[in-house]
């Protein structure tokens, strides 16, 4: 009997080392992708019926301690060229993000609120909230299962936004398939409050850039609208030593 008890005790000691929780998986993804700064060019092709819309932008981001700052500068379409969005995102889920938009036609820097996060990002299938950095503790994460997705060993994690984040989100939960080897999401499904599938993101074109596994091609689909957006990143660079001043309002110029 004592042998069995010792055996059970040993199994209990060993189990946590192998069985990761949902939060630990997401934390690991965050750590693996942890870079001091980065920049990339992004091109979006929105396919909606017969319509094809093209968007181009330059994205830069940098860590400030536990917080993140990002700058998006639009290149296309022509009518929004040089419009820029500056965001300061805080790791503390209780703190509101700070956001500004720069309008080149008036040389005006204008503070905006996070109320528009549910809206579409440049008419694409991405919402504004899909583009921004998401802190690990903005959601509660649950490991649903381990398995394979198209031959790739994966964790399936279900992430539910914490109440303060839920009210500014389109989604009641996200189901994330995480590549076990590269610690990167390869598929995300977004569900609304009625547990209906809203959107599906598939990531591919994986490249190891400066030691960081990066999805360079993304496909966001909205089945209800029969619409999808292809996004491709190019000229991706990490840890390039971007200066703090890049993420200050004084740099917002045409």
């Amino acid at each position, binding site marked *: 009997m004592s042998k069995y008890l010792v055996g059970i005790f040993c199994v209990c000691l060993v189990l946590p080392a192998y069985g990761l929780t949902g939060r630990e998986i997401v934390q690991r993804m965050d750590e693996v992708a942890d870079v001091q700064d980065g920049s990339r060019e992004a091109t979006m092709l929105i396919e909606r019926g017969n*319509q094809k819309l093209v968007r181009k932008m330059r994205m830069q981001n940098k860590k400030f301690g536990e917080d993140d700052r990002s700058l998006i500068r639009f290149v296309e379409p022509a009518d929004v060229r040089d419009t820029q969005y500056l965001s300061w995102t805080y790791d503390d889920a209780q703190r509101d993000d700070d956001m500004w938009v720069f309008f080149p036609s008036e040389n005006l820097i204008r503070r905006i*609120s996070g109320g528009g996060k549910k809206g579409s990002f440049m*008419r694409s299938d991405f919402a504004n909230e899909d583009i921004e950095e998401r802190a690990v503790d903005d959601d509660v994460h649950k490991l649903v299962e381990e398995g394979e997705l198209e031959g790739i060993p994966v964790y399936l994690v279900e992430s539910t936004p914490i109440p303060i984040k839920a009210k500014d989100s389109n989604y009641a939960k996200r189901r994330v398939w995480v590549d076990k080897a590269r610690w990167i999401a390869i598929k995300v499904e977004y569900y609304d409050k009625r547990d209906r599938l809203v959107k599906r993101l598939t990531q591919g074109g994986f490249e190891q850039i400066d030691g960081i596994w990066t999805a360079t091609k993304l496909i966001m689909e909205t089945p209800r609208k029969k619409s999808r957006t292809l996004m491709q990143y190019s000229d991706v660079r990490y840890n390039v030593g971007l200066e703090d001043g890049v993420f200050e309002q004084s740099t917002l110029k045409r």
Partner: protein
Amino acid sequence: MVYLSKARLSVSFLTCLLIGAGELAAAQDPFDFDLTASESSNLAWHVSGYVESRNQYFEDSNNWNSNRVAGYVEVKWEGEEKAGLQWRAYGSVISEYDEETRDYRDPARTEVKEVYLLRDGDQVDVTIGKQRVAWGTADGVSTIDRLNAVDFRDPIGNARTASRRPSWLVRTEAKLSSGILEMVWLPRGRDRKLPEYGSPWEPADLRALRNQERLGLISLDLEDPHKDEWGVRYSSYGEGIDWSVAYFNGYTDGGVDLKQVGNRLRFTPEHVETINVSGALGLTSSTLRAEVAYTTGLVVDGVTNDIWQVVLGWDRTFLANLYVNLQLFYDERTATPDDYGATFVVSNNAFDDAATYGLRGQVGKDGQLAIEGYFEFDVRDNLTLSTKYLVFDGEAGTALYDYRDNDFLELTLRWDF
């Protein structure tokens, strides 16, 4: 009818299978796309612009106020960044043709909108040229947006904001650890333009004087003396809140003093000074905006006033795209009755965000209102169709009274390149 032999049929069947398999393989790789294939190289020069047709129909007089065709080109140059220093240049030109304005304005006109050279340094930026620079945090009515003159020849930006003319200026911005210190000098003052004689935007008082001049009863001197103007602003952008303090030393824009000099009547922009404090507070889903300003020497109805101005604003996006913006303003004047009112916008998107529609405008005391219903539709990536219906009203003696017969329907088609 076409008959196929067995051999040809089997070859065709095999071909179909192979093609089908190929398509299947392609379908299995959803990432078989390259959006960067057509990307241009990182050029230092950028050229863009638009061609636009704008038609305005005046409802009250049942005539076309404007059938304008415009071509707009902007050129931008960015030099290579060396040791934290970068030079940039920008220029934009608009050419217009509007037959409907022939009675009071040359129907064909070309104008430099903006042209400037920017020295973007580590600590100090310097801009020299002609530029639009908006100050203040409030929308609709700002108490410190004084660096650019209202374009009284075509004054309606939309129902709540006036269109403004870029100014020739020297602008210096010092990047401090706590904020930005900005100094602007307009060596020739703002680029003021009065509405032409006979224009529908010409105030009745001005038209009466011009009529008297044409009858030889008076002599008018409407030339802007182009005295220099300047302003300084300190802005701080931080976590949760932005604020700024600004000072402007210049001359009136819309309000001008009529002085008798010898036997001539002279319109002279009056000297004004404005001190302003502005702030914007970010809340979870909304933004609060506020401005307080004290201006000396502002001419209202021909009377010189010192004015305290307060603007309080709030804006928020509900759901995904339902945007609401409300700004209240109050002017306390020393010599003429106080003024107050509100500006507003309510807008939403439709058709997968291809369309934006809404209501915006301003309401004020003595029945003043300018309200606009609008609908903008992105037909394609670079093709926009928009329409608006704008109404004005106000009691006699108010600023909007002169526009009361100018309600118009506008249709605009614009192609960007």
